């Protein structure tokens, strides 16, 4: 059976494999024999979990050049593996790095690329949810080795235990990879909350939060649920919450199991980033707010009354 290469992402600090990568391995099994591709250190500790989710092989690229240069070393390693293995497909995460790797790899290997897939079937047809989730598109790569980027939380990771063996690959990188160098990595504090695009639950605040102080109410609710915090563009533009937490057409796209929108009207700009959430709960003063059209459950009311009460109730019920 042809291999399917899966670019595996892992936490830089702990080395643990991201849940999204286990989702990609689950999808890869529909197309062939999943083989993980690992960049950096820590692969030995990950063999068990990679095997548990069906990867028979992990190709390990761990060298100084891989760490010192952005994006392109991953393209170098993957294109060498594509040439060597003629895989059935290459699947990478829909992260900033992942999309750029996919784009360059497509150009370099003469392959078509589909970004932001939410599903891939056994015949290679990808499902995309476009225009803020208003349209569902099925498409297929028609040239070269199909390359897909897949959004987090698209499928549930399913174990399929096998034995995973590691193979070291060359980390000699191309001259073009060396044209840009990472001189420093700066880790911003995120207060122990999950990554926004990976979180199972996202709690967001918008214009109705009224100011940066107001976000403490949103954060408390998020922490009671182990959720990530998001913000609408109105809130990030006003400087109430850091820009990297913006959900929407010009920010992150999330599709968690549960999305709680507080003081967010639900303009298309915002819906474009969260419309594929499995369940939506909304709190807004304005009964006419479009967010209620998306909500499975909504409360028309003052978020500063409703949200703290909700947080208290969750903490009570948890104990």
């Amino acid at each position, binding site marked *: 059976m042809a291999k399917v290469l899966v670019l595996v992402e892992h936490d*830089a600090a702990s080395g643990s494999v991201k849940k999204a990568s286990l989702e990609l391995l689950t999808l890869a099994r529909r197309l062939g024999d999943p083989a993980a591709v690992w960049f950096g250190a820590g692969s030995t500790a990950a063999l068990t979990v990679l095997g548990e989710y069906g990867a028979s092989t992990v190709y390990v690229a761990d060298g100084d050049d891989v760490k010192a240069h*952005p*994006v392109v070393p991953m393209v170098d390693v993957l294109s060498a593996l594509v040439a060597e293995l003629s895989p059935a497909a290459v699947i990478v995460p829909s*992260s*900033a790095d992942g*999309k*750029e790797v*996919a*784009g*360059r790899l*497509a*150009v370099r290997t003469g392959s*078509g*690329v*589909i*970004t*932001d897939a939410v599903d891939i079937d056994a015949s290679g047809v990808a499902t995309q949810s476009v*225009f803020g989730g*208003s*349209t*569902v*598109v*099925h*498409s*297929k790569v*028609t*040239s070269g080795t199909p390359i897909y980027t897949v959004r987090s939380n698209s499928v549930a990771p399913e174990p399929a235990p096998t034995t995973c063996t590691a193979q070291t690959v060359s980390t000699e990188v191309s001259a*073009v990879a060396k*044209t*840009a*160098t*990472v*001189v*420093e*990595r*700066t*880790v*911003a504090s995120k207060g122990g909350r999950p990554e926004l*695009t990976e979180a199972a639950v996202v709690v967001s605040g918008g214009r109705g939060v009224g100011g940066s102080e107001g976000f403490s109410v949103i954060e408390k609710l998020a922490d009671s*649920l182990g959720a990530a915090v998001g913000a609408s563009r109105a809130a990030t533009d006003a400087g109430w919450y850091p820009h990297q937490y913006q959900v929407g*057409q*010009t920010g992150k*796209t999330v599709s968690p199991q*549960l999305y709680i929108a507080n003081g967010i009207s639900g*303009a*298309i700009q915002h819906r474009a980033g969260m419309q594929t959430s499995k369940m939506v*709960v909304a709190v807004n003063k304005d009964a006419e707010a479009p967010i209620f*059209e998306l*909500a*499975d459950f*909504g*409360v*028309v*009311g003052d978020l500063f*009354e*409703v949200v703290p*009460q*909700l947080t208290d*109730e*969750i903490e009570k019920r948890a104990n």
Partner: protein
Amino acid sequence: MKIAVCVKQVPDTWAEKTLREQDSTLDRESPDGVLNELDEYAVEEALQIAEAHGGEVTVVSMGPARAAETVRKALSMGADAGIHIQDDVLHGSDAIATSAVLAAALADKGFDLIIFGSESTDARMSVIPAMVAERLGVAQLTFAQRVSIAGTDVTIERVTDYGFDTITAAMPAVVSVVEKINEPRYPSFKGIMAAKKKPVETLAVADLGLDAASVGQAAAWSAVEDFAARPPKPAGTIVSDDGDGGARIASYLTEQKFI
């Protein structure tokens, strides 16, 4: 310094976007076409760099005839000249072909910096800057929240999930910028008038030395099989807060097994 800014005309950010039944391509006719919002930051960054370090800014856009408005918009913000790649054979081009066209228009022109917005608000693929860098064989410095120039080097802060990476390269380089990088200026009346007199070169695919058969929908390396509007979501339960709104959400989340 010679700076190119690549911009795209997209349907108005606030408009509902649809695919056309006949060929599954984006309907670019019905909604108003605007300069892709994220490209405004690219134009602004290019202008700021040119103002600080000296230089000339050229706007480059591939798109149908009406995309000329978008080139003019960037010129009215202060860019010096425009290149509009317009050719009917380009209709339905995928990102692969688009990157080939842009790279052909940019190659051998001596640009020190080629600046993009981090994505378009219609396709949202975020791959064109990387693909163009790949084709031109120059450094890729993308998703920048900050760009600084020192001599012949350019350094950016690349936004990452965990914070940011500081990345440096010798020019020439492809840069893409995220929206928090600056506050794009509005075109002044004077700028709008001046833009009318600025040179815009209109190029066809053949002018770029590309084969017409290598672009357009028929040459795309991926194809849409079918599409449909997402079925409307069944109406949810909406209640007014009578002092128990938070508790009612908690009960709902308990029923749904989130608590």
